[in-house]
């Protein structure tokens, strides 16, 4: 049956049906929205091939930058026509040294004497990856449900406030104190995210706007709490910084004090498994995906779209909050300041995109980014290459992933392969046969 070509997807008619006699002329008005939501879905849920290709392209583009700014290469370029071999070998050693340093700093230090020292870079990478896993999962859950949660910063700050306050102010025995701090931190982060969910469900306010605004509110709330004696500010100090966490609230190191990697990484792995189960095997996740893919059909199927939106934000916020909790209870336990989120709410967007909104993919993407961060530091120290190159590579990854669907949406290009050798725009929309 050749129905797919004979009846192309016609843009949805507006739900409020027109009065008699005016039915047919409104088709074109709905089209742009469809186009953009299609682009959104393609960006956040594309294929693995694009992810791998984007990383490779970004690394390639990164090497061009490294090579172009390398002094030896530039010196050799001056006499390129006399001895081209010099420049080529300079290029090779510049790029090679840079990525060797990146590898040495992120995976395995082959210059170290013992296994214990050699493996240390990997532990650093995983440590950097830990908060990215949680926040990436949070973003991914939102993407799958059609929500763009930009509020990672605010949710992490609120999680840090909740977990941190429990962590330094209460007196409780070890596992209990730590668990309580984790739970409270996740709840405060989730509730902060829920505000945006409720606003969307009740008033229709777009979550991108509200979460960004909530980021600012959270930042200045934390600033106020840190600057006011008797609240979060460390007693006897004028600095906007909290007291250190009590040792009973701190997450223990997994492989002893020699390595930074702490319990938070295990929690992040558990979160990966839990998120997979939630999205693939639970009723709640089923409703999340249904609302994300087709809210109208979800509504007809009796799913309360508004309530589901709130729950999506709660779950997304709780996962992002896990990142904030591991920061204050695991990574830097000496108290935190207004920069506690370290921009990870935004890095999480990249991680979720690169991971294709899939929990296992997010794990891989977060570890890759953790490795970039760890290796970038070594690269700077050993080869004098600015660590900003890592940021450039990360940004290029997003660009390469997001660009094809975005470019298609902007120029109304057909999807490659869907209808070969066609010149005009999508005929499904023009002809609606």
């Amino acid at each position: 049956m050749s129905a797919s070509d004979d009846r192309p997807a016609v843009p949805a008619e507006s739900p409020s049906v027109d009065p008699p006699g005016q039915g047919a002329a409104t088709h074109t008005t709905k089209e742009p929205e469809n186009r953009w939501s299609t682009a959104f879905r393609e960006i956040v849920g594309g294929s693995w091939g694009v992810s791998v290709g984007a990383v490779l392209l970004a690394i390639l583009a990164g090497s061009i930058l490294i090579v172009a700014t390398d002094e030896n290469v530039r010196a050799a370029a001056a006499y390129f026509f006399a001895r081209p071999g010099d420049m080529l070998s300079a290029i090779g050693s510049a790029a090679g040294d840079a990525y060797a340093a990146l590898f040495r700093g992120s995976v395995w230090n082959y210059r170290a004497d013992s296994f214990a020292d050699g493996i240390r870079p990997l532990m650093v990478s995983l440590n950097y990856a830990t908060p990215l896993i949680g926040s990436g999962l949070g973003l991914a859950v939102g993407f799958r449900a059609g929500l763009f949660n930009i509020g990672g910063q605010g949710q992490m700050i609120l999680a840090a406030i909740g977990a941190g306050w429990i962590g330094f102010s209460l007196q409780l025995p070890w596992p209990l104190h730590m668990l309580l701090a984790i739970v409270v931190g996740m709840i405060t982060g989730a509730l902060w995210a829920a505000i945006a969910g409720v606003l969307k469900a009740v008033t229709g306010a777009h979550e991108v706007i509200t979460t960004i605004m909530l980021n600012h509110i959270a930042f200045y709330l934390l600033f106020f709490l840190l600057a006011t004696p008797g609240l979060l500010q460390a007693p006897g100090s004028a600095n906007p910084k909290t007291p250190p966490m009590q040792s009973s609230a701190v997450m223990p190191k997994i492989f002893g004090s020699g390595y930074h990697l702490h319990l938070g990484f295990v929690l992040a792995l558990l979160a990966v498994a839990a998120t997979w189960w939630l999205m693939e095997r639970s009723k709640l996740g089923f409703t999340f995906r249904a609302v994300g893919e087709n809210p109208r059909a979800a509504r007809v199927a009796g799913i309360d779209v508004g309530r589901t939106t709130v729950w999506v934000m709660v779950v997304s916020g709780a996962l992002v909050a896990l990142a904030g909790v591991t920061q204050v209870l695991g990574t830097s336990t000496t108290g935190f300041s207004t920069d506690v989120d370290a921009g990870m709410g935004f890095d999480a967007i990249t991680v979720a995109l690169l991971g294709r909104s899939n929990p296992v993919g997010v794990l891989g993407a977060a570890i890759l980014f953790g490795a970039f961060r760890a290796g970038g530091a070594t690269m700077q120290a050993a080869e004098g290459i600015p660590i900003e190159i890592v940021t450039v590579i990360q940004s290029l990854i997003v660009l390469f992933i997001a660009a094809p669907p975005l470019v298609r949406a902007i120029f109304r290009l057909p999807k490659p392969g869907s209808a070969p050798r066609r010149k005009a725009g999508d005929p499904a929309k023009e002809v609606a046969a």
Partner: protein
Amino acid sequence: MKLELRGITKRFGSLVANDQIDLVVNPGEIHCLLGENGAGKSTLMNVLYGLYAADEGEVLLDDEVVHFDGPGDAMEAGIGMVHQHFMLVPVFTVAENVMLGHEPTRAGGRLDLEQARAKVREIADRFGFHVDPDAIVEDLPVGVQQRVEIIKALSRDAQVLVFDEPTAVLTPQETDELMAIMRQLRDDGAAIIFITHKLREVREVADRITVIRRGKVVGEAEPTSTDAELASLMVGRSVELVVAKGEPQFSDALLEVENLEIVDRDGLVLVDDVSFEVRGGEILVVAGVQGNGQTELAESLLGLVEPSSGSIRLDGVELVGRSVDGFLREGIGFVPEDRSVDGLVGTFTVAENLMLDRLDGPPFVKGASLQIGARDEFARRAVEEFDIRTQSIHAPAGRLSGGNQQKVVLARELSRELRLLVASQPTRGVDVGSIEFIHERIVATRDAGVPVIVVATELDEALALADRILVMYRGRIVGIVPADTPRDVLGLMMAGIAPEEGSKVA
């Protein structure tokens, strides 16, 4: 101008949408292209219009091979297309729409609206269309909008006119007027291709009929052929066009709708003081031209639209004010009008779609977790019972053909304990083979003692299924009449003219 398509073949991956199609259309001839949905008619026309490039074959105009890279080339060569969904800008006037893409200009790039107006008037006068060049298109009735499309094609001196399912949105009266226009254009020397799957229209206007099935020309037919002959050519076997059903056996179940009023956000009354009853074991067809309140009426029966006043009672229990979930829990099966938007999540698998509105508890949900085993087992059974043609129960539902998508929706809605079935245009865009099956299942539901409401815009479907027919016009009930009411009476009712007193009570 004579149009000839020679050996047109168009493939999409492994699917052959058009397979060696030959077609000749002479000037002064209405050539009907008949075939089910998905037979490849629209693909063929898109090849002709330059939207698709054919993999093999060629297009000839007056015996010369032509090559189109897009609709612009096709229009230039004298081919005009009247689309099923009008390609008009609603807020523009008739004249502005007609000149769009072909704007006559005066010095300095200023639009020459006067010239466009004159052109509209000239064409309208020639064919006796009553169209005001300065009317805003969105204010015009659908039938007139379609004439604007025709004028648009004619203003580019089109000599080959393609009408792609032009009657889908028209009342029977408007359809008759369109056919008169087509005859007039033919007598004026145009070559006309008329695409449709409605047999009555074919026999009325066609000079020649070509039947397409599964991308191939399966035969030519004479306009004198009977419906049954044409239908069997279309589907490859003879089709029972009349649904076999006995006298209704009433049960105690009862749906009562009383003084229902639905107002949209702008304060426009969409459903106006509607009252009726449906007893268990009968099918009430809600007929009318699309956009006369039937959609909102159907949606209110699932709680999707909140009525501003009135009541909906199922077996004496008031339902107004409940959530959609609350309606579903009462055992209401709902087949939405637009299945691909409202009935299915296209990216979900067939199995996932089959449990979409059954998340309340067993067998598909236990506690918080989905029961994958129960789901897949049910899906396998449903695919078999409803003859859903899919590669696997794990294939995305959006990839299925229209008929098979509809079967997924029906399988879901009919596989549970029902106390009311509401089906909106259950066979829209469905192939003839599936129509028969869908009608049978709806009648079986009625025979099980369930009250059934079917919203239909096509008279054929209304007459085939109904025990009684409720006709709506501008949100009001024109009348509720027995199923043996003559077509012309129903046609008039759909245009808002009430039948003589006395036949109103059924």
